[in-house]
């Protein structure tokens, strides 16, 4: 898809997110060099459960993203509930309380679009299960910047709408099962 070296992974998931992420993220090996930025739609008043739920099963450190923190390699960052997660040009994370986008805050599109701007062809975007259209526009932005677009195969998703919307917006995205997505992400970095 592209010859550029991948420098970061951005993942978006909604309905069925926990189950899907529980397949993908724990399959990333210890020492995996890329940062993984994740937006999951959650009710706004909940604490980020994902960090607690996935932290134990992942071999990479899992954290809630903090405003203005430098993006560290080999770390999984979750957007906090009720805040957009953005990537700054100097490769720091930032948070924002701006209006929801497509009724979502955090918004997958906002993460994908700002990450695409910073990483360009060095970004891989992944759209997983979900019952809305968030992520489609952002995935297209990633492709337009020369990055890699992966989508969970709709028929394997707990909710197919989001993968379908992403494939609609981004017909050349690679559609894969969750296990294949994990394998693809592992293969994007040179073996150690």
């Amino acid at each position, binding site marked *: 898809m592209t010859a550029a070296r991948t420098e970061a992974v951005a993942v978006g998931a909604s309905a069925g997110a926990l189950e899907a992420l529980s397949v993908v993220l724990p399959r990333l090996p210890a020492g995996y060099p890329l940062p993984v930025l994740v937006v999951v739609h959650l009710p706004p008043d909940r604490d980020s459960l994902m960090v607690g739920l996935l932290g134990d099963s992942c071999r990479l450190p899992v954290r809630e993203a903090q405003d203005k923190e430098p993006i560290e390699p080999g770390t999984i960052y979750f957007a906090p509930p009720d805040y957009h997660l*953005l990537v*700054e040009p100097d490769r720091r994370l930032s*948070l924002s309380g*701006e209006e929801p986008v497509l009724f979502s805050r955090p918004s997958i599109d906002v993460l994908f679009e700002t990450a695409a701007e910073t990483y360009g062809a060095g970004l891989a975007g992944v759209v997983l299960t979900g019952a809305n259209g968030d992520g489609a526009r952002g995935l297209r932005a990633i492709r337009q910047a020369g990055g890699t677009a992966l989508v969970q195969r709709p028929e394997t998703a707990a909710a197919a709408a989001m993968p379908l919307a992403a494939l609609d917006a981004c017909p050349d995205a690679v559609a894969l099962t969750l296990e294949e997505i994990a394998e693809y992400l592992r293969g994007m970095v040179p073996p150690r």
Partner: protein
Amino acid sequence: MSESVEDVEFRLLLEAVFRKYHYDFRGYSRASLKRRLRQARERMGCATFSQVQDRVLHDATAFPELLTFLTVQVSELFRDPDYFRAVREKVVPYLRTYPSLKVWVAGCGAGEEVYSLAVLFREEGLEERTMIYGTDISSQALRRAEAGVYGLDRLALFTENHRRSGGKSSLSDYYTAAYGGAVFDKDLRRRVVFSDHSLATDQVFAEVQFVSCRNVLIYFDRPLQDRALGLFGDSLSRQGFLGLGAKESLRFSSRADAFETFDREARIYRKRGEA
């Protein structure tokens, strides 16, 4: 990597806005500001930031429109009830020991937090000795704050937030429903001053015991965050309190040493006393 043409235009637009209108957005977080400026560009029917700049420099009516995109005005009364509960249960006991109090709500937007604190201070019996300063760079937001009118559709949320913050009265005691809006009691504003103030360009204006600045610093880059925190440090009396937003911290700031953590969960800090 060389700067894209759009990035060049983006910087020039911010420079033009600063030189002509003295609003300084040059230290704002880039990613979010750029998103908002692109929305403005689209809404203004411009193809490029250069066109936006041309419009803003030569058409005085275009700037207020642009400014509404540049300033984020989304809040709630008693947003993050746990914060207000911590203010009520942990900060107020200290504030009670002062004969007179000044509170600064920096970046008050449309006034939601000012009214929240006005209600809280009344419930705690501190209203008569307290002045609350609500400041913002947006005159449009300040006019909304002065009016104190919020959509009725938001009242259920505000009421629930207030209850969860440990509210001792009924929020409905403080507003009147009229014309589809909830009008907050003018009496709550007796001890409130709304004023234009920029954390990017203005200086300290009063000595205060409590600064509440929530979900403002996230829109600033680190140097501007440090400037704002410097103002708060200079404005606060010894051992004064600083409240930040639920996802804000002093962790990545060079000003962190001036403060100590008072309540980690609620993001409340305290200015260190002199050595």
